[in-house]
């Protein structure tokens, strides 16, 4: 039996590699033109992804964080560690909200799901608002206005620092001016807005460059996988 299991593992691995390689080729076939093989691989990917996320969320979140807290003794067969825990009734509230969310599946009482949705949106908005305000606004303003002169720095470092800070502060102000539409972009204000466009263009260029690198990295990963499959190195 053990020998069989040992033989089955490499075989299962090889079959997995072959399926992966063929599905990759099916997806790549879209580069030539749309075709049924591509459609099949695409639909399979969507279906498997949805099922995977649902299953993982069920076993790693719903079971230990909800059911094991409401019915610990019943979950003992799945999670022996929680079998002797005390029941925590307060977790009935998220269970009720979760069930209410499912009323969307019944059109006659679908309006009921808005209660749970309102809770989700309210929590997310409240949490995100404070964190975004602190991390992406207040701290960013502080980070933009740093001292130009540092006593410990060398002369060259100080010159470089001053230049960098002027570029950063000037760039930020000009970019903001570009988005200020209550005054006509003419004269000195217009020229600052023009500089703002260049700053934005530089930012978009950097983003584009990184995006190209990301896509090529993923292509490299797939090509390497296909090459190993073709040569039999990863079977």
């Amino acid at each position, binding site marked *: 039996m053990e020998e069989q299991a040992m033989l089955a593992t490499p075989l299962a691995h090889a079959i997995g590699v072959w399926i992966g390689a063929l599905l990759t080729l099916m997806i790549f076939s879209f580069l030539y033109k749309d075709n049924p093989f591509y459609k099949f691989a695409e639909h399979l990917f969507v279906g498997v992804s949805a099922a995977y996320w649902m299953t993982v969320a069920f076993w*790693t979140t719903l079971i*230990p964080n909800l059911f094991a807290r409401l019915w610990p003794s019943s979950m003992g067969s799945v*999670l022996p560690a929680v079998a002797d825990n005390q029941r925590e009734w307060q977790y009935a509230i998220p269970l009720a909200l979760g069930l209410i969310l499912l009323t969307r599946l019944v059109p006659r009482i679908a309006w009921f799901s808005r209660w749970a949705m309102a809770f989700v949106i309210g929590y997310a908005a409240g949490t995100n608002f404070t964190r975004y305000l*602190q991390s992406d606004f207040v701290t960013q303003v502080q980070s933009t206005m740093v001292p130009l002169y540092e006593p410990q720095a060398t002369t060259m470092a100080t010159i470089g620092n001053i230049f960098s800070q002027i570029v950063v502060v000037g760039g930020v102000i000009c970019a903001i001016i570009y988005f200020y539409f209550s005054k006509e972009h003419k004269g000195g204000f217009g020229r600052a807005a023009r500089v703002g466009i260049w700053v934005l263009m530089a930012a978009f260029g950097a983003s584009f460059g990184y995006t190209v690198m990301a896509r090529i990295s993923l292509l490299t990963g797939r090509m390497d996988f296909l090459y190993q499959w073709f040569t039999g190195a990863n079977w």
Partner: protein
Amino acid sequence: MAEPEKKVTLIEKLGSMDRRIIFLLIGLAVLIPIIVKYSTSIPTSPLVQTLFDKVESLPPGSKVLLSFDYGPSTAPENQPMANAFARHSFEKGHRVYLMALWATGPRQSEQLIEEIISVEFPDKQYGEDWIHLGYKAGNQGLINTLLSDFTAMYTTDLDGTAIDEFPMMEGVESLRDFDLILGLGSGFPGTKEWVQFAGDPGDIPVGGGTTAVMAPLLFPYYPRQIVGFLGGLQGAAEYEYALVKQHPKFGERSRLASQSMGPQAAAHLVIIAFILVGNITYFVERARRRKY
């Protein structure tokens, strides 16, 4: 009377090139360096070096949280980062806590366990030196909860063993008990959320690595809000360079990202060539239209 046949110039041909030729050339630019095993070493930038120095300077036994917030689709970029962080952390004797904000993350951490921890660090004990906590739903809400009460969400490890049975979980009550959080992300939630919901409010050192697409979003956080980060494959290659330079024993084993930088360089050259060709044909066409 039949119209005289218009002669198609080279510029017009280039301007209306079939996109499939471009795909083919990009494919070849990536494939050929893979076949000939062309790779490049990328010297470490300050952005990566500061993070490397942080991991290097932590005393042995420090608690490092490694969050796998990505899936197989971006593994070519993120997995070399995870490998490099794990190698470095174990080499320095840190305790490593694996978790995930993405449901697809645990599979990636299992790959790390199979290929790196089990093979290169077999003496490291589960529950004492490293632990696999798995995935929990909740995105930034999860981080928010972990910041105040870690065990409220993580009652067991991935295999269902009670969390308090592991020696390395002693003293871990919230995210504030960790010495460094390393978020490996490829979208939402990811490294950005670790900065916003853990690093800033908890004053916890946060670093990590992201796909190149996400990297520009993290630059504004450096250096005040993030220790340092690896931006895409290049960042991973830079970290590998620093790791091998400081710890030569890893040598050729730690070159997963560096090996992929060869195809990267070749593909970039082809793309730059096409950008130049596209611009030249545009300006020549425009000049011709103005003339007539």
